[in-house]
């Protein structure tokens, strides 16, 4: 029997096929239940397709990749999972990873199983941000610095944070409150690292309150408080601000794209910390996790790809020769500027971040 294929029939057929393809979602088994797999939460661009394919072919491990966009998000998700972590590897090594450590969400890194740890640049392998309670909790891939990003057509290179509070720049500045806060503490003569206050939290609270009040008083200079580091790019490109406190990656991307931007570490200093991977507490595929981290450290090609997609400096050896001259030039900091950087110290004075978080909410709400 032949039936002429009418338009109606085709549409009906497509409808039926659609329903079939929508087969009950409960039939789809969770990926995390298998054994030769590895479940990774990652920022976009941290694991290239090429690296992933090669890794899967060489090891027989299937990598399930889930892109995440923010530290707080991962924290809340891990907590909500209630100890049954769906990820083996997470991507939380910013300067707040100590909160993950303290909440028992991470596994310390066992350097004996991480044979390629020597691939991490020496300067970054021993820094404070990666250690808490004397143990190492993450594998760094890129290094972030914070400084001032400015429009070179609108102003000279600023030397001091004072430019952020200059009446001439009223309504023309922007910053991410929590990241900027320690620097303003330094600017006002307090200790932004809070190391000096480690034994007396009351002094720290007074310093934070004074800084908070100063920032509220200078709210008229601010066009906008941003959240994600890359928002600063849009603010500059759209001509809404002329100078902003921000991090190196977004600045480097702007400059490489030909936008008249400059990036400096001001006199009062800047912070440095790292992005990378961490192992989730009680990861189901622990061996695979170490295999993966070892492979990442041994792949300067993947390291270079991360540098290109984020604009941050690499923390692993062998990446620099793979970059173009222009990229190297933009990423390089002068010796003076490097000397002004301080590692975010989460070993001795992490308590300051809680105070800053509350202050930041109050500044916003004011």
């Amino acid at each position, binding site marked *: 029997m032949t039936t002429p294929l009418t338009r109606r029939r085709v549409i009906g057929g497509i409808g039926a096929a659609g329903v079939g393809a929508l087969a009950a979602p409960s039939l789809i088994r969770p990926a995390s239940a298998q054994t030769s797999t590895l479940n990774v939460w990652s920022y976009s661009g941290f694991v290239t397709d090429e690296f992933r394919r090669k890794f899967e072919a060489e090891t027989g491990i299937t990598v399930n990749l889930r892109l995440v966009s923010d530290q707080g998000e991962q924290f809340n998700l891990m907590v909500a999972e209630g100890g049954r972590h769906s990820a083996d590897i997470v991507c939380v090594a910013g300067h707040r990873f100590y909160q993950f450590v303290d909440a028992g969400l991470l596994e310390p890194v066992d350097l004996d199983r991480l044979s390629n740890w020597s691939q991490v640049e020496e300067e970054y392998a021993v820094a404070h941000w990666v250690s808490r309670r004397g143990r190492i909790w993450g594998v760094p891939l890129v290094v972030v610095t914070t400084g001032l990003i400015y429009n070179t057509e609108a102003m000279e290179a600023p030397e001091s944070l004072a430019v952020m509070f200059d009446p001439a720049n009223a309504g023309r500045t922007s910053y991410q409150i929590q990241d900027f806060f320690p620097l303003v503490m330094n600017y006002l003569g307090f200790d932004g690292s809070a190391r000096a206050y480690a034994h007396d939290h009351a002094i720290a609270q007074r310093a934070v309150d004074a800084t908070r009040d100063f920032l509220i008083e200078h709210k008229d200079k*601010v066009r906008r408080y941003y959240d994600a580091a890359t928002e600063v790019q849009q603010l500059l490109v759209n001509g809404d601000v002329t100078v902003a406190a921000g991090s190196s990656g977004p600045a480097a991307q702007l400059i490489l794209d030909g936008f008249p931007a400059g990036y400096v570490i001001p006199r009062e200093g800047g912070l440095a910390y790292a992005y990378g991977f961490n192992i989730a507490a009680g990861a189901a595929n622990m061996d695979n996790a170490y295999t993966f981290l070892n492979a990442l450290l041994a792949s300067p090609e993947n390291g270079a790809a991360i540098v290109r997609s984020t604009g941050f400096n690499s923390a692993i050896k062998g990446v620099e020769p793979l970059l173009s001259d222009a990229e190297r030039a933009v990423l390089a900091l002068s010796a003076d500027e490097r000397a002004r950087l301080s590692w975010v110290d989460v070993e001795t004075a992490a308590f300051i971040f809680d105070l800053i978080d509350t202050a930041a909410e109050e500044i916003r709400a004011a």
Partner: protein
Amino acid sequence: MTRLLVRARRLAVYRTAIDALSASPWLRALVVAVVPVLWVLVTNLAPLVQMVAISLLDRYPLPPGETAAWTTRHYRAFVERPLYLNAFTRSFVFATLVTALTLAVMFPVAYYLSKAAPRSWRVRLILLVVAPFWTSEIIRSFAWILMLANRGAVNSALMWLGLSDAPVEMLYSRFSLAVGVIYLSSLYMLLPLYAALEKIDDRLLEAAADLGARPLTRLRRIVLPLARDGIVVGCTLVFLLAVGLYAMPQLLGGPGDTLFAATIGQVFGRAGDSWPLGSAFSIILILAALGWVGLFAALVGRGGRRRVVR
């Protein structure tokens, strides 16, 4: 469909069941109520109870093996810190104003769609108006950034036309925030208004016109009272949306326009043991919003009834 149902009547089981249903309003109510009651208990109340519990803990999430004490200090924090109260008041004033504005903008649109537009075009026009809502909130916020920025589309057009020499600062202000929120919430006003206006009998309006009622009188005495339900629902939905919006205000608002939902989002977003504070603030927001909306519905409802009686 009807033919199928008529054929089904030949089955004894079906007939018994349906007749029992027809005979007893209580049985009908039971069948209709089972699903809602279960759903409400499982999905609406359980998470809420959990949240109330968390809001009374000293801190949460806890490191493994530790426990937290019970406390009401997070509720007290709301009263004790005037800065939070600021954001809270701002949220309510702002959401109320935006709701009123959205109603003013959308009422003529809904009226056009339900009464004035050619009947055969209506569904197509609704689909047209709905189309932008397929795009994610963040992308639409970015689109507005491109419109309103100093070097954005509007400023470029103004300067090209010679209407201004320097960019007008529109972005990151209460203005851009209101534009963005209206943009996001207009649909939630439109559909209830449309559903309400559509059911008003055209002949009623024609009769009123024949009797010499002027357009404004017809609007006030016929259209508005009959559309009251739609107005209440639309305003409720838009208010809820405006009070709970998180991403859009962050992207389009200025440094002085932080809304309470954003504050709550910040508390939850900070990756620490501050969930109780965020939960307490959420409970406060829910109760206040419910109360405000309930008050509004009661006032409008009563006013409407009085008018009908008169």
